[in-house]
C-alpha cells in the first residue's frame, strides 16, 4: 500500500514552489494533477505503439487499436458498466450535449418535462435549456433543503408521468452534496423517465457503480480523475444508444457511405466520429489503473477525512461562512470570508502558494440560490494532506490582515 508520501511523489507538479512557497494545490475539483504513471503511459504509447485506430492492418495500427479498446474496457470496469455502452467524448460537457441532442431531440416531446436541480453545473443545465426551447418541453427544478440537499419529497411531487428525463449531478461541484442517485433513479424509472447522472465530481472521488445506480446515462471527465484533458466518457445503456441518432458524423462511425446517404456502425462506435482521442484514452486507462491500485475506497475515506477537518477548521475561523451540508459531503468546501471578495482571497492565498478557486464555479443559478455573487472553494484529492489545510487557514488569516479586515 502506498503512503501519502509515495502518492505525492507520483505527482511531479507537487514539488513546485509558487511565489516562494511550496505549492498547496486545493483546486482538484476544477482539474486534478497528473501522476507520472499517466505521463509515462502517454509517452510510452507514443514512443512504441502509436498509430490511428480501427482501420489499419499494420502492427502499430493493430496495437494502437488493441490499447484503445483495452482502455475502454478498463474504464468501464472502473465504474462497473458494460463496455458496449461506453463512448469516449471530450469530457462531461460533450457527453451531456450528446444525450440532450441525440436522445432529447428524438425522444423528448412538447408537453413532456425535464427535471433538473438548482445545483447543476452549467454543463448539466444549458444543454437542457436549449432542448426545452427546441422541443417545447418544460424544465422543472427539484427543490432543495436549506443546507443544500435535494428535498426528496418535494422532488417526488414534480415527478409525474410527463417527466421524460431526470438529469442530476452525483456530487455538487459547489456544495459537495452527494445526491442519493440510486433512489432518484428508482423514483424516475417508476414514472417512466430516463435518468442521466453527471458524475464529473463523483467518478474521481467515490466508488461508482453505474449498474447498481441504475442510471440510463452517466457522464464524467478524465481530467478530474488523474487522467488527461481532451477525454471523457458517456456511458449509456446499449439498447438506448442503439435507438439514438448519431451526434457527429464522419469517419469511423459509418458502415456504408454513398454520395447522398450513409448507414451507421454499431454502438459505441456510432458515437465516435473521426479520429478519437487515442492517446488520451490510453492514458485515461493508466489513470484508472492508478486509482484502482490505490482503491476508490481509500480515496473516498482520505478525501472524507480531509474535508471534515477543513470544514471544522474553516467554519471555526471568525468571519468564515461555509455553504452546503455539514456532513456526508464530497471533497469540496465552499465558503466566503466577511469583507473579502473571493477573488482577492484567492489572489492573496496564491501569494502564499495556496491554489484555491474563486468565482461562480460554473453554477450561477446556485450562486443566486445561495444569495452570493461568488464564493471561494477549496477542494481535495488523494494527494492532499492535513498540513495543507493548515496552510489554507494561515493564508486566510494573512489575507484578513492584508486587507485590514481584522
Amino acid at each position, binding site marked *: 500500500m502506498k503512503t501519502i508520501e509515495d502518492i505525492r511523489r507520483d505527482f511531479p507538479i507537487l514539488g513546485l514552489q*509558487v*511565489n516562494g512557497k511550496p505549492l498547496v494545490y486545493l483546486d482538484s475539483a476544477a482539474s486534478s494533477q497528473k501522476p507520472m504513471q499517466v505521463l509515462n503511459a502517454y509517452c510510452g504509447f507514443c514512443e512504441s505503439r502509436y498509430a490511428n485506430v480501427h482501420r489499419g492492418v499494420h502492427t502499430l495500427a493493430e496495437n494502437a487499436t488493441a490499447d484503445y479498446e483495452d482502455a475502454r474496457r478498463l474504464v468501464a470496469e472502473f465504474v462497473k458498466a458494460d463496455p458496449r455502452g461506453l463512448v469516449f467524448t471530450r469530457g462531461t460537457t460533450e457527453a451531456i450535449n450528446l444525450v440532450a441532442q441525440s436522445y432529447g431531440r428524438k425522444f423528448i416531446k412538447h408537453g413532456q418535462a425535464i427535471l433538473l436541480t438548482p445545483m447543476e453545473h452549467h454543463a448539466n443545465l444549458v444543454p437542457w435549456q436549449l432542448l426545452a426551447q427546441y422541443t417545447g418541453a418544460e424544465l422543472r427544478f427539484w427543490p432543495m433543503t436549506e443546507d443544500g440537499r435535494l428535498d426528496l419529497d418535494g422532488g417526488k411531487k414534480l415527478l409525474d408521468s410527463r417527466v421524460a428525463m431526470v438529469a442530476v449531478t452525483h456530487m455538487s461541484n459547489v456544495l459537495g452534496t452527494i445526491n442519493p442517485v440510486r433512489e432518484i433513479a428508482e423514483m424516475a424509472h417508476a414514472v417512466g423517465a430516463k435518468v442521466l447522472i453527471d458524475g464529473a465530481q463523483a467518478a474521481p472521488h467515490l466508488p461508482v457503480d453505474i449498474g447498481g445506480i441504475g442510471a440510463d446515462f452517466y457522464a464524467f471527465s478524465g481530467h478530474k480523475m488523474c487522467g488527461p484533458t481532451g477525454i471523457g466518457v458517456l456511458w449509456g445503456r446499449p439498447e438506448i444508444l442503439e435507438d439514438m441518432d448519431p451526434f457527429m458524423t464522419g469517419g469511423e462511425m459509418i458502415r456504408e457511405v454513398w454520395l447522398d446517404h450513409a448507414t451507421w456502425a454499431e454502438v459505441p462506435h456510432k458515437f465516435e466520429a473521426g479520429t478519437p482521442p487515442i492517446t488520451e484514452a490510453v492514458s485515461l486507462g493508466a489513470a484508472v489503473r492508478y486509482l484502482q491500485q490505490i482503491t476508490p475506497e481509500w480515496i473516498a475515506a482520505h478525501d472524507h477525512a480531509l474535508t471534515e477537518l477543513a470544514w471544522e477548521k474553516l467554519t471555526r475561523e471568525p468571519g468564515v461562512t461555509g455553504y452546503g451540508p455539514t456532513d456526508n459531503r464530497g471533497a469540496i468546501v465552499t465558503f466566503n470570508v466577511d469583507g473579502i*471578495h473571493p477573488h482577492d482571497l484567492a489572489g492573496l492565498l*496564491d501569494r502564499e502558494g495556496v491554489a484555491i478557486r474563486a468565482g461562480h464555479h460554473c453554477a450561477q443559478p446556485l450562486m443566486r440560490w445561495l444569495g452570493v455573487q461568488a464564493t471561494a472553494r477549496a477542494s481535495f484529492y488523494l494527494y492532499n494532506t492535513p498540513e495543507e489545510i493548515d496552510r489554507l487557514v494561515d493564508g486566510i488569516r494573512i489575507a484578513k490582515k492584508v*486587507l485590514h479586515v481584522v
Partner: protein
Amino acid sequence: MEFGSRKRYCTLFDLYSEILLDHYRLPRNKGRLDHPTVTVEGTNPLCGDELTLDLEFEGDRLSRVTFDGKGCAISMASASMLTEILQGKTIAEVEKWIADFRAFIRDGHAPEGVEMGDLTALIGVSKLPVRVKCATLPWMTIEEGVRKYRGS
C-alpha cells in the same frame, strides 16, 4: 522519463502591492453625489463586481466624479485611482486617459511618454486575463458615462 527532484519555481507579479492596498483600504472619492450630471453603472457578471459612477460635468470639464459599489480589491482600487486622476480633467483628457489605460493593460507597459502614476500598480493584471475585467471595469463604465453626456 525522469522527473528531477530539483526545485522548480513559479512566480507571478504581485498584484497586491502597497499602492493598490492603500486605495482599497482608503478609497478616494467613494460615495454618491447629490446632483450628478450623469450616473452610470457597470457590472462584471463573472465576478459580481458592481460599480456606480456619479459624474458632474461643467461644460466640457468633468468637475467631479465619485464611485460606489462592491467588488474585488482590483476593481475598487482601480475605481479609486480613476476618480483621483480624472477629477477636473476636460472630456478630451478623460478620453485620452481611457485610451491610454486600455493600451497600458493590453500592452503591459505605459504608452510612450505617458506617466501612469498610481495606475502602475495595476500592471500585473495585463498578464492575468481573468482579472483584466476587474481592472478595466471602472474605465469602461466612465467611457459610457462620457458617451451618455455627449449624447444628451
